[in-house]
């Protein structure tokens, strides 16, 4: 039963993957003329446009284009950049580690701040601590990245001079310089995550703390700290783990603003640069990659969740 359910979920997400990639490929062929003029710029003539359209294969039916693209993609070929002639997969492989490090670092920072805050707030619902943290959380959920990042740069990098304003030091240059360049952007990304994590975990903790077994543990004379950390935290963290996994996937394409502002060589700035330099093949490849990874991660969470929490398995069967 569980196996069948898993297979169904995987099949379902494969279908979504096909749809997603089809959308990406179709997007270009929806407007072949405009793609050609965008690439060629003001120097375009009708002849050169037609030549480029047929060179890119945009004059063929969408289905043939898509099947061609898919055939190449499953063999690890996402096409070559119009600008640098490098394979798109190579470009992605070069840019992915930066975005991945940013996303993971941001999640570590977010967890490190959100979990203690959530515990403090849930320990006394309605207390001053609870109200202050929840006010802060709803405020920081309303700070868009393009507002948070420049303001953090202003206060932490320019006024206090704690971090460099922009630039990237690769891990190969040592962990110290690497972290120095990665911490501020990661914190800018983490800001909204902290709030989301704190809210979720606080709500779940408050719910768990009302359970009978918590009252029993307290009645046995266990200290509030022990009850909170050993009895309440783990069963309350399931939704947090789900959110963590999903938002990590989301961050692969969600660090665009921060990467651009700090001029970090990640996937997000790759998309933006490719758009401004009109390299549509790279845009197509990267967008497809990000979307497919996101779907895969969500499916993994969906399936893994059932393995992790026996209660879900039972409910699914009923």
């Amino acid at each position: 039963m569980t196996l069948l359910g898993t297979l169904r979920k995987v099949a379902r997400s494969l279908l979504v993957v096909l749809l997603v990639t089809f959308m990406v490929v179709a997007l270009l062929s929806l407007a072949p003329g405009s793609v050609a003029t965008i690439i060629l710029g003001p120097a375009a003539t009708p002849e050169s446009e037609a030549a480029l359209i047929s060179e890119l294969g945009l004059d063929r039916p969408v289905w043939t284009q898509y099947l061609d693209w898919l055939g190449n993609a499953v063999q690890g070929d996402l096409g070559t950049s119009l600008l640098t002639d490098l394979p798109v997969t190579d470009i992605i492989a070069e840019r992915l580690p930066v975005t991945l490090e940013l996303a993971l670092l941001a999640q570590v920072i977010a967890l490190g701040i959100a979990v203690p805050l959530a515990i403090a707030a849930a320990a006394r619902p309605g207390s001053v601590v609870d109200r202050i943290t929840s006010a802060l959380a709803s405020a920081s959920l309303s700070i868009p990245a393009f507002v948070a990042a420049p303001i953090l740069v202003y206060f932490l990098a320019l006024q206090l001079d704690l971090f460099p304003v922009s630039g990237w030091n690769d891990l190969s240059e040592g962990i110290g310089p690497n972290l120095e360049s990665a911490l501020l952007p990661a914190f800018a990304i983490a800001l909204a995550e902290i709030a989301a994590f704190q809210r979720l975990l606080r709500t779940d903790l408050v719910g768990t703390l009302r359970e009978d077994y918590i009252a029993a543990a307290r009645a046995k004379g266990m200290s509030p700290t022990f009850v909170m950390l050993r009895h309440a935290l783990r069963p309350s963290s399931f939704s947090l783990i789900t959110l963590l996994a999903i938002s990590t996937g989301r961050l692969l394409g969600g660090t665009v603003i921060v990467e651009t502002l700090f001029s970090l060589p990640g996937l997000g700035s790759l998309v933006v640069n490719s758009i401004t330099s009109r390299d549509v093949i790279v845009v197509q490849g990267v967008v497809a990659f990000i979307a497919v990874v996101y779907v895969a991660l969500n499916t993994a969470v969906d399936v893994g969740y059932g393995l992790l929490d026996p209660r879900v398995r039972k409910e699914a069967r009923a």
Partner: protein
Amino acid sequence: MTQIDYLDQTGGALAESVPSEPVVPVVRRRRSLSVGLSYTWLALVVVLAALVPLLPVSDFDIAAGPPRTSPAFGELDLLLGTDNFGRSILSRVLYGGRVSLVVGLIAGMAAFVIGTFLGLLAGYFGRWVDAVITYVTDALLAFPPLILLLSISAVTKPSLFTLTVGLTILVIPSFVRLSRANTIAWRSREFVRAARNMGATSPRIIRREILPNVLPTVASYLPLVIASLIVAEGSLSFLGLGIPAPTPSWGGMISDGKDSLNDAAYLVLVPSVVVFLTVFALNQIGDSLRARFDRTAGD
């Protein structure tokens, strides 16, 4: 009195045994100060942005004073300072607000109408209608929001129209999901079955029985969605892919000012504060509406 006796099968015993204190406390609707302030701020921004051509401020594209004047009381044009070209920041913030608000409102409303309709169809008819709509929704949701907008802007010329269409596509899936889930919750209720047994057609059932119940819940998410649309529009214009210059936009102003952070931080701080307050106000209003109209909202 006779009527009450007739309804009360216990012969009046119930009326006497009802305790003077209600068992479940009456739900007290909190009059929140922050929600009140949010409505005030939003009204202020909307009115000022709508009336800015009539206000005694200079146009957004001409110099109103010396470049990089710090904010100061005195002349209205210079209240929030001037930018690198001496243009009034007050004027640019208000004109920029027009773009953000109009785009957010139109895209939000369009997505609300389209998404609610599709969600009703998917939830009511189920089967292949549901499958098709759900798969397309899931596929759209697989794109991180900004990436979806970026890939649309890769093949189109940035303009008010393409921007609005892109933003509409971006948020349709959220409305589809909400409306579908709510439709499923209502579609097998007794009054819907009664309507069907009385021979009502599907369009009529959807329109007269289900829609009125689904609408408040879905609509209560509108402020939250508009807030996210304003953020998305701001992100695009921050990246230089939104409304083309010289039309000002909040994201564009922050982007223009970010290189002068060191010596003229107000270039970034002023539009940042405006964006934050607007998004925060919309989120507060959305949360309060959701608490009132969405029965599934737990927290």
